């Protein structure tokens, strides 16, 4: 299996964390906070459509609200493949960072 890219890793983690709140606006704001700069919708949906295609995430339609001028939300959740991918990523990260202290690069 191919490794996740950083942005995919971040997105999958975000979706997993946000659980029921994992739709466009929520995901974008959360990711923006983590990477500490504006994460655009362009990047978000481009990546999300790739993740969907790779079957890492599932989509569920939500309800339209007045603020959205009648457009439904799409809620994202992890598929088993997505979960596995996250597990692998975690394992790899752990191996990669093993024995390196927080101050190693100071």
């Amino acid at each position, binding site marked *: 299996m191919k490794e996740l890219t950083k942005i995919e890793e971040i997105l999958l983690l975000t979706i997993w964390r946000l659980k029921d709140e994992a*739709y*466009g*606006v929520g995901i*974008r704001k959360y990711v923006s906070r983590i990477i500490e700069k*504006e994460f*655009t*919708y*362009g*990047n978000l*949906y*481009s990546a*999300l*459509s790739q993740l*969907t295609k790779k079957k890492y995430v599932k*989509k569920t339609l939500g309800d*339209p*609200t*007045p*603020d*959205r*001028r009648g*457009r*439904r*939300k*799409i809620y994202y959740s992890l598929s088993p493949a997505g979960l596995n991918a996250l597990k692998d990523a975690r394992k790899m990260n752990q191996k990669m960072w093993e024995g390196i202290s927080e101050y190693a690069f100071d």
Partner: protein
Amino acid sequence: MPPRKSHPPRIAGWILKYTARYEENFALFGDFDEEFQEIARTKGTFFARLWYWRQCICSLPVFTRDFFYWRFIMLKNYLKIALRSLKKHKGYSFINISGLAIGMAVCMLIFLWVLNEVSYDRFHEKADRICRITMDFKIGSALHTPVCITAAGPALVDDFAEVVTAARMDRPRRVTVKYEDKTFQEENVGTAENTLFDIFSFPFVSGDPKTALEAPYTVVITESTARKYFGDENPLGKILRINDEKDFSVTGVIKDIPPNSHLQFSMLRSFQTLKAEKSVRDNQWFDLRFYTYLLLDEHNDPGLLEQKLPEFIDKHIGKALNAAGGSAQIFLQPLKRIHLYSDFERDISANSDITYVYLFAGIAIFILLIAGINFINLSTARSTKRAQEVGMRKTMGAVRSRLIGQFLGESMIHSILAMVLAVMLILLLLPLFNSIIGGQLSLNFIQIPWLFAAFLGMALIVGLLAGIYPAFILSSFLPGHVLKGSFKAGGSHSRLRKILVVFQFSISIALIAATIIVTSQILFMKNKELGFNKEHVVVIPQISESIRKSYRPIRSELLSLSGVIDVGASDIVPSRGQLIAPFLPEGFTDDQVMTMDYIDVDAHYIPTMGMKIIAGRNFSDDLATDPDESVLINETAAKKIGWENAVGKRFIFRPPPNSGGKTFYVSVIGVVKDFHMQSLREKIEPLIIFYDEDSLSTLSIRIAPDNIPHTMGLLKKKWKELDPNRPFQFLFLDDSFDSLYRSEESLKTITFCFSFLAVLIGCLGLFGMASFTAEQRTKEIGIRKVLGASIPGIVRLLAKEFMLLVVFANLIALPLAFFVMNRWLQSFAYRMSIHALVFVLPAALSLFIALITVSFQAFRAAFANPVDSLRYE
């Protein structure tokens, strides 16, 4: 009460809508709106709008990237399908592409030719400011000519400030040029003033353009002429002997003249030479010999200058003109119009005609149209084959515009392939084409880089125009209809296809008819009784002075050769034009002068040429009075003057006033049966024939029709003895007459090629259509055969449909051809009568060709075993 809704910026929303292409678009827009409202509530609408715009613009790169990514994926699919269907239907693709390629090749060739035609004389830096003087001159006879009054050029420069300079030049002619031991007949040797180089851009390789032709007996030559005579030596200062009379020193070498110049010469002698020889003076106002070019100043307005010209003429020669009862008008012809807009007598060079440019461009476009129609017809006819695919694509969510795009793209692929093929065809055909039109065209993408873009553009436009109708038809299929399998396309659009086929064949048939008419007119002209016998006459033009002086003994020497029947002499070569002058028949008042052609001959010319004396007698060697007192006239002259019995009538010759000469008379001793001396475009004019051994310059030798090579060998050997200094130059009179019709001949070749191509492309299309119909009706034919239909019956059934179209096309094309070609024939004084055969032949030919094309497929379908076609029902 809910808070008032703020609206997101419309334009940004619009951009978003057209750039973002995801399945999740609705959610994406929702997200945008939701966050926008949130910010609007907390920070205000302004910030919300700002955010929206920023978000939108920052997202754009990604959107567009993805947009093209998906497009690209689909494009690959379209391309794959296009190539697959190309491969799968090799026959149709071949017909489509090769037909289109031929059409394009013709179009491009003509385009190259037109480009060359309109480029004439544009290479001169001052082309916009150069004019040529043309005249309508009438003293007795009217002359519409670019030959100008000798004195006019310098006088115009003196009189008008806007005329910067003028240059006179004569018509380049053939002379003998000798350098050391090398002798050549040089075809294009002219005489010009040095100012010619101020006016035109003929760049000098060596020598000084300011002074090259200032002195008498100097000559400027072109680079290739220099190489011919001097090899690698420096040509400056070398001496060339011209016509074995005068020595000229080379004072300049210019670059070879581009082929797209109406002025063509290999050598230019200085005008000063003529002045030194006293054969020209600057104040000659009644002498028309030279072509005069003017350079106007930068603020020139030729129209304005032209208005002042009548006054100019009046000032200088008004009185003399009035006295002579003549008139003269001068006009300015811009340099750039010379090649395409000249219809003058005695022009400096043979020019083209803008009508031909339009004509050929029109035909080329028609041929491309025929090829395009093939494409449309075959594509719509074969739409059934693609219907399944269209249905499938639509079911999978393809929108109509995308499908139109796909099919348009496919037709463009076809047309680009056709263009590649066409370029190869052109490279192959250019030499042939050049030999037909006598040009030097080349397909040089490096020289003219935009040519490539032009061709590509043409391919794309053709692809678009030919593809747009089939694309709309194909994309209109309803998937439900198609996929159920009950669909039969092609039928509903057959009316348009029929119209298009009729159109195609009309063009082809009209072209065939035109070819036949041109061909038979040429045959008519070549075979028409000319009034003398042009066969087996050897003409030796431009005999030298020494030969002329001892003409009589030389004549008897030539007669002693075996195979020589008779020898005569004249001042001109028949077919090459003769001089005209005013003559006054006795009994007419002075203002009733007759304009007549005149030639000078010896006593043996009339019998040598086989001309017939219908009244009176020929000149006689033995009568000393004949040269001075006797003339012959032709029938037309007798008729025009109104002499019923012309023999014995007289012409009056009055000397110019104050010249001290005496009035004298010449009397008509005989009338010659009318004979043609020119192209049959021209009427036979009144002609007067003088007996003048001093102005003879051309020998005509009638030889026996058998063993011509032997006779020619003897003649050549004899001539070498008689005139050792000059090469033996001769021509056959019948060739010379045939060459009068060179432009008609090339018109014939071109209409023939065009009609051949039009028919070929049309038949390709017909073949495709016929095979398609046959294929579609396989089952019908199977059933018919089972029920007992005969093979001829089935062939008739299949062929009838198409043959009717061709018959219909004939009905349209033939009257059209008649109308157009009749107008063309009007330009000939002597023309064939259009007989029925001219129309029967194209009709029969087109029907025959169409029948063969169609019946090939029809027979194949008719012979097919019904078991094969019906097995699957």
